[in-house]
């Protein structure tokens, strides 16, 4: 990066720090949003890998009926930890904390987020939460075995370390709230001159909507978790039917958070898709306002559909059909987005580079996940499919096929901007293709098994499911190989990759108007925005700019 031809002031944020320290301390005490984004990237990827390994072990157990490599109790703790780690440590913080942190200020033309020190504190709170999860594994009592939903009454009766593990979820929620609060304030207060609300890139709209859900929903799980801990410690009685309490109330409060949390997970991914498609189709986004408002609509309606997780819990018929109706309504804004994305590509000049391929994979997998969500959202079919593998397949298609895919899409799209290096396009293409095959092998059989009646969270099964279970397990191995290829490609490229051009994809949003990797305060001077976000007529001007 010590390029003699470039002027001396062209130092990247790697070479210049916000504090007086050097080495590791300059990272641990940094208030630079880009460095904090990278801190999140490293920690979140570490936990993602742990979650993947747990998943592969579970699949291995299921390769044959009966105990194969572990006992039932071990399996119980594995699926709980897989859920807790993937949800609270990977997918909820994933896109907002990594890419939101790194690109929110860049895309709105700001020097940093509104509260840089609070931003660093959020990362530390995340790390503390993660450490608490890890400690809960090794304390006497054993790892938590309740499933990631911590349903009452079992979560009160279980003798495993439930209290510590769910307190960790409370702490992680606090980190999430502070990040959300920071981003909302940043969007309101720090946009560059000329960047009105409708000139913001759509990724910003999605991060903004996500931040609102983080603020509105997370406190509810906070208080719910505290009450479960109180219940375990003192026997307060609020959720205990023996003392007059109501376990169903717990389910309501849990899902009042955890359903909107689904949109915390998927909205930022939709934002990234809205960035990648125009860039690689060389065409402005179709229906900018419709996409922007559909993010807000999802954030709003998504708050009102929680009880569709509880159709078989004994809630009233009136409540059931209202929640079913609302569930169908919340599918509409997602549909609006999908149609707009496809319409953007129509007559575009498509350049199928790896980020675009990830998006293609996303659209297929997410659509399958979304449509099977409607099967579960309608009352009659849900009675049959509730708590079966069908549900497992559905949410893995939405979460992993949706958000997980775009996690990689975003990584491959912004990698040159973050590190100033380029990865191997060939291996990236291979990994997308392998991912798509492995994913469908791994999860599609679960739709069929669920439809046939295979319940979720069982470590044993009837012999007739064997073939489908084996296909799924082999899929999990292929998925493991794909992950190795992805991370090997990226890590190798960070160290030894070729230097990337400033704007390898020809993007026009503000992050492409500065150096790769960007300088410490992002721009030499705060840019003035004169174009719509996806106006590709800027590309020619930008070439002259960089000369």
């Amino acid at each position, binding site marked *: 990066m010590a390029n003699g031809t470039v002027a001396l002031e062209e130092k990247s944020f790697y070479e210049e720090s*916000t504090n007086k320290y050097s080495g590791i301390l300059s990272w641990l005490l940094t208030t630079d949003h880009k460095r904090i984004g990278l801190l999140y990237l490293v920690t979140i990827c570490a936990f993602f890998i742990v979650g993947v390994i747990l998943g592969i072990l579970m699949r291995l157990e299921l390769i044959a009926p009966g105990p194969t490599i572990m006992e039932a109790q071990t399996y119980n703790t594995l699926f709980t930890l897989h859920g807790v780690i993937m949800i609270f440590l990977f997918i909820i913080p994933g896109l907002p904390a990594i890419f939101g942190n790194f690109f929110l200020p860049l895309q709105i033309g700001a020097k940093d987020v*509104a509260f840089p020190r609070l931003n660093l504190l959020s990362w530390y709170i995340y790390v503390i939460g993660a450490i608490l999860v890890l400690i809960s594994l090794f304390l006497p009592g054993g790892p938590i075995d309740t499933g990631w939903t911590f349903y009452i009454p079992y979560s009160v009766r279980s003798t495993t370390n439930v209290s510590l593990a769910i307190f960790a979820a409370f702490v992680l929620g606090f980190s999430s709230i502070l990040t959300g609060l920071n981003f*909302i304030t940043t969007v*309101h207060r*720090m946009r*560059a001159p000329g960047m009105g609300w409708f000139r913001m890139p759509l990724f910003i709209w999605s991060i903004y909507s996500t931040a609102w859900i983080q603020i509105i929903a997370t406190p509810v799980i906070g208080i719910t978790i505290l*009450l479960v801990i109180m219940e375990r410690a003192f026997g307060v009685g*609020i959720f205990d039917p023996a*003392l007059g309490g109501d376990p169903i109330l717990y389910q309501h*409060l849990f899902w009042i958070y955890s359903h909107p949390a689904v949109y915390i997970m998927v909205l930022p991914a939709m934002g990234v898709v809205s960035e990648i498609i125009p860039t690689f189709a060389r065409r402005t986004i179709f229906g900018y306002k419709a996409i922007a408002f559909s993010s807000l609509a999802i954030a709003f309606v998504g708050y009102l559909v929680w009880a569709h997780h509880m159709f078989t819990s004994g809630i009233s018929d009136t409540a059931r059909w209202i929640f079913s109706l609302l569930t169908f309504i919340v599918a509409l804004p997602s549909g609006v987005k999908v149609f707009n994305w496809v319409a953007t590509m129509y007559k575009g000049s498509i350049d199928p580079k790896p980020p675009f391929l990830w998006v293609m994979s996303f659209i297929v997998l997410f659509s399958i996940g979304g449509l099977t969500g409607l099967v579960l959202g309608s009352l009659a079919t849900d009675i049959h499919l509730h708590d079966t593998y069908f549900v497992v397949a559905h949410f893995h298609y939405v979460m992993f096929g949706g958000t997980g895919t775009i996690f990689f899409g975003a990584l491959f799209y912004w990698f040159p901007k973050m590190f100033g290096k380029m990865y191997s396009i060939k291996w990236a293409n291979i990994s997308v293709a392998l991912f798509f095959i492995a994913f469908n092998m791994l999860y599609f059989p679960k739709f069929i098994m669920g439809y046939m009646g295979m319940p979720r969270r069982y470590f044993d099964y009837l012999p007739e499911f064997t073939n489908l279970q084996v296909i799924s397990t082999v899929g999990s191995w292929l998925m493991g190989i794909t992950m190795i290829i992805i991370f090997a490609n990226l890590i190798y490229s960070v160290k030894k990759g070729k230097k990337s051009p400033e704007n390898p994809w020809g993007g026009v949003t503000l992050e492409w108007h500065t150096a790769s990797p960007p300088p410490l305060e992002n721009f030499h001077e705060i840019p003035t925005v004169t174009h719509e976000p996806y106006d590709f007529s800027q590309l020619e001007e930008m070439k002259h700019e960089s000369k």
Partner: protein
Amino acid sequence: MNQSSHAPAVEQHAHRDDIGAKMGMWLFLFTELLLFGGMFLMYAYYRFQYPDQFKIAAMELSTSMGTLNTIILLTSSLTVAIAITALRKGNRFLALLNLFVTIVFALAFMVNKLFEWSAKISHGIYPGSEDILNKPNGEILFYGLYYVMTGLHGLHVIIGVVILSFMFVFIYKGSVNKDNFMKLENSGLYWHLVDLIWIFLFPLFYLIH
């Protein structure tokens, strides 16, 4: 962006945006409201299920103690507001004095609460005790909610005392001053929230018989 700020150029990286700081604080207070909102929801649900037993249980709480604490907390909200206005007008001494009085009121509130709780506990009324398990379900839940909600509120009072003490030191040292009072104003906002929550807790537990 706050381009016209006259903040001294000591730290170049730090930018100052008072409106942004206040907006962040309001968002945080909003999450606090939702945290307690979950509890109020539970209170409403169980009160609806066990109206008579809630009434009987509420009779056992001392209305006069509750009233005293309400007066203390309301007055402390006044003194913190005076402290902010005094600082803005440049009267540092008056600001420090009122902040000190606020902290004293907060501690008085907690002492009062301590007496109240220990009286209940010495009568065997606390979650999981033998006496309480012999009571009907509605009363168990009333006291469960009473301890959890006033306990969580008390925790917020303690956090408030810590924050206000820091503000006292900052004003004393001069880093929070006439031109840079946002930290104090945000602390005041937090303190008003603590007060506001109590204003709802008070009638729900002490007044509705």
